């Protein structure tokens, strides 16, 4: 039967609506979120790249000179350029030219939001094709309403964009396997190039896809290998050829001294410094890192109902896989494609978590480093949702029509409420499974990092600080502090400093190893009494001191 016009356009429209709705929600809530430490660095980098784009527009030959490239692109060259270029272009056109945004920082964040939100659209599209429309929709919303996803999707950073592009590349790869043609394969190659140009998580995806290839082709793959004629999927060929070209084209820093600079880039991330991170009451700062970190943090930060649906979906998929392998399902059967799809989701998920199987992998990024796993987790959750919907529908009899909305509402209510409640304390939020934020604090789980919670005390500073007061910014990068001032979150007359002794007010963002900064403030200010404490659900996260003034303390 020929699909109706609605049928033909419904899914792209729903995918677009999810994207637009999420971007709108992120924009509406962005103002209350202080700038994270790394956002300040990327803001500086983007401004530098933006200046280069101007040179490129005015004098292309000058822009392509090595000295010019080095001048503008050496900033933050430990990360590739795609997102920072998008931040720059968004700032240039949407803020400076079109005046869509009143705040510079928001204009840069917008690029991050736009790419991050693609994860919802593609989760939906994939869930729709593999499971069903409602299940796909539920999967996308479960992804949207994870506190850590929601927090990271706001930022002018790379972690949520890389999760989105990891998903997009894998989805296109899946489509290319089904179609067998070059169109989807080329799209996969281009997407992989963009992924490479976003963040180094991208290095793991080909390994995951090759594992998928080996696992799903099974004995056939071994026979091909012995015969020396392995049929490599076109998409993998495209990823190996088009991907690096797109990556190269998108990152001017590596246009000169390519080998040396790439080696430097790889070495930076393979030998990354170990920052401190609290986990179960202990601060880890050197290997061995705890093997249970990624798993327990996932349990503590992803809504429990999402995890339950994931577990149901995963178990159902494993049962299906066992049956499919035992019965050798005919390729023509409707569910024959499910096994390779589930396998692809599984390698996408495990590939994202794989680095944390090693005790040598740093854990300082908290949950943000494996956000790439979450779309796949939600796709399995779609399977779990669909199974529950079918089974409950069978029980409901004549009230079957009510099952879908009731079930969807019951599984989405808690993620939506938990996530909206977590704002703007995204990194302090924990789920009821660990007792919420108070339970997590008692367990000794990290309460915050990145210094973004300065935003939560901005109103106190704006109200109480005298004109020209000097503020010690602690873990907030000075660049982030300045952006908060330019965006109107903080008064412009305040002066940020990294010197406690020179300050009138001092911020402190709590992590156990940072305690010594708190103590320095006590001794220098002569008080242990904060002027204000920013607390999430009763758990102190950030606090502010005011240097006692002689007139106020006779």
């Amino acid at each position, binding site marked *: 039967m020929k699909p109706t016009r609605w049928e033909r356009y419904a899914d792209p429209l729903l995918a677009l609506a999810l994207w637009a709705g999420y971007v709108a929600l992120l924009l509406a809530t962005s103002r209350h979120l202080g700038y994270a430490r790394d956002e300040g660095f990327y803001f500086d980098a983007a401004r530098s790249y933006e200046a280069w784009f101007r040179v490129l527009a005015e004098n292309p030959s000058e822009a392509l000179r090595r000295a010019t490239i080095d001048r503008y692109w050496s900033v933050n060259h430990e990360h590739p350029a795609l997102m920072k270029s998008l931040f720059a272009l968004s700032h240039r056109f949407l803020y400076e030219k079109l005046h869509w945004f009143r705040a510079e920082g928001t204009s840069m964040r917008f690029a991050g939001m736009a790419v991050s939100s693609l994860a919802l659209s593609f989760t939906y599209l994939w869930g729709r094709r593999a499971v069903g429309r409602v299940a796909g929709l539920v999967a996308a919303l479960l992804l949207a309403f994870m506190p850590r996803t929601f927090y990271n999707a706001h930022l002018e950073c790379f972690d949520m964009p890389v999760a989105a592009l990891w998903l997009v590349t894998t989805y296109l790869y899946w489509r290319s396997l089904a179609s067998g043609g070059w169109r989807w394969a080329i799209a996969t190659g281009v997407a992989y190039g963009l992924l490479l140009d976003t963040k180094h998580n991208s290095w793991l995806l080909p390994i995951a896809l090759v594992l998928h290839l080996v696992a799903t082709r099974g004995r056939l793959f071994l026979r091909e290998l012995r015969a020396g004629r392995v049929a490599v999927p076109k998409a993998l060929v495209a990823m190996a050829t088009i991907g690096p070209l797109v990556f190269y084209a998108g990152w001017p820093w590596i246009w000169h001294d390519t080998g040396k600079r790439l080696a430097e880039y790889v070495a930076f991330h393979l030998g990354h410094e170990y920052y401190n991170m609290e986990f179960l009451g202990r601060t880890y700062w050197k290997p061995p890192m705890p093997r249970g970190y990624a798993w327990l943090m996932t349990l503590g930060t992803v809504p429990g109902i999402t995890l339950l649906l994931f577990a149901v979906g995963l178990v159902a998929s494993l049962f299906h896989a066992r049956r499919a392998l035992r019965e050798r399902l005919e390729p023509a059967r409707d569910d024959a494609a499910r096994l390779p799809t589930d396998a692809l989701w599984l390698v996408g998920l495990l590939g994202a978590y794989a680095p944390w199987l090693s005790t040598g992998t740093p854990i300082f990024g908290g949950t943000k480093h494996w956000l790439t796993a979450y779309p796949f987790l939600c796709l399995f959750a779609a399977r779990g949702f669909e199974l529950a919907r079918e089974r409950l529908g069978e029980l409901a009899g004549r009230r079957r029509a009510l099952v879908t909305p009731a079930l969807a509402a019951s599984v989405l209510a808690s993620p939506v409420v938990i996530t909206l409640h977590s704002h703007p304390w995204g990194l302090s939020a924990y789920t009821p499974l660990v007792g919420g934020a*108070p339970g997590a604090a008692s367990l000794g789980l990290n309460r915050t990092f990145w210094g973004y919670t300065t935003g939560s005390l901005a109103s106190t500073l704006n109200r109480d600080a005298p004109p020209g007061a000097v503020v010690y910014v602690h873990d907030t990068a000075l660049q982030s502090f300045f952006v908060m001032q330019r965006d109107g979150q903080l008064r412009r007359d305040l002066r940020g400093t990294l010197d406690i002794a020179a300050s009138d007010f001092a911020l402190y963002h709590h992590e156990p190893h940072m305690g*010594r900064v708190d103590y320095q403030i006590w001794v220098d200010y002569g008080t242990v009494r904060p002027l204000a404490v920013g607390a999430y659900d009763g758990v*102190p996260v950030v606090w502010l001191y005011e240097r006692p003034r002689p007139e106020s303390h006779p």
Partner: protein
Amino acid sequence: MASARLLFALVPLAGLLELTSHFFFSMRAPTGDDWSKLRGALAAVAKPGDLIVAAPDWADPLARRSFGDAMMPLAAVARPDESAFARAVEVGILGSHAPALDGWRTVSETRAGRFALRVLENPAPARVRYRFLDHVAPDQLTVALGERECAYTESGRPRTGGLFGPATVPSVRHECPGFPGVYAGVTVIDDEEYRPRRCMWATPSAGEPLRLRYRDVPLGEKIYGYTGNSWFLYRDGRSAPVELVVRVGGDALGRAVHQPADGWKRFEFSAGAHAGEREDVEFELRATGSGERQLCFYADSR
């Protein structure tokens, strides 16, 4: 088969259970306003000199903000241990207790909203006769690096190093001329659990001992104290050991060697025949190896 299907009814129930649990946990702990309102109730049970402790310890900043420096002075918040406190008031939330007060006798327990105020007595409080940290003025303490006397100032420029810098260099200090960073003064360091410890910063220079001489100290039965250095900076063991020798009237009462990764480490030296007397007490600090040297110590006579 129907019972297997019924299991799926647990899915929506789990969603609703999580929602309910979220409301429960997010509203369980007292807010900042609740803490502010508690001051009166605490004042009714606390006596001057009582140790005020928040339980769990993560609530401490809210307690400090609400009760202020008078009820929670720096010396108590960054105490060496609890042994010298006769009484404590534990401000508990969420059913928590302070592990440091285990073994203390509960005198009273009152509820104030979401708080439990427990007054506890130390079964064997130490009677401190003299706290060396409380005596830094030059009529009580002189400091010398080798043979050179270090100058006392109450208006030195304080220095703070941030996360990777040294502990705060206080404005009140004995500064040793010609040796930047070599001084004696009271500051706060982070111990091996990143807790605050108020102590006398006294770092010898290479090859030259630093001597702190206290005048006319009433001596108890022992000199009791701790040695430490900033755990965050020296937890990897990269610094030289520092030796601390305590002398009274020319007699060495004891010697403690602080290794960089020792954490907050206790020492006790018997006053012997000097117990009950008033005498000068000298702390001599000497680096016993090459490399960076840092030491901060707490001491009292009890």
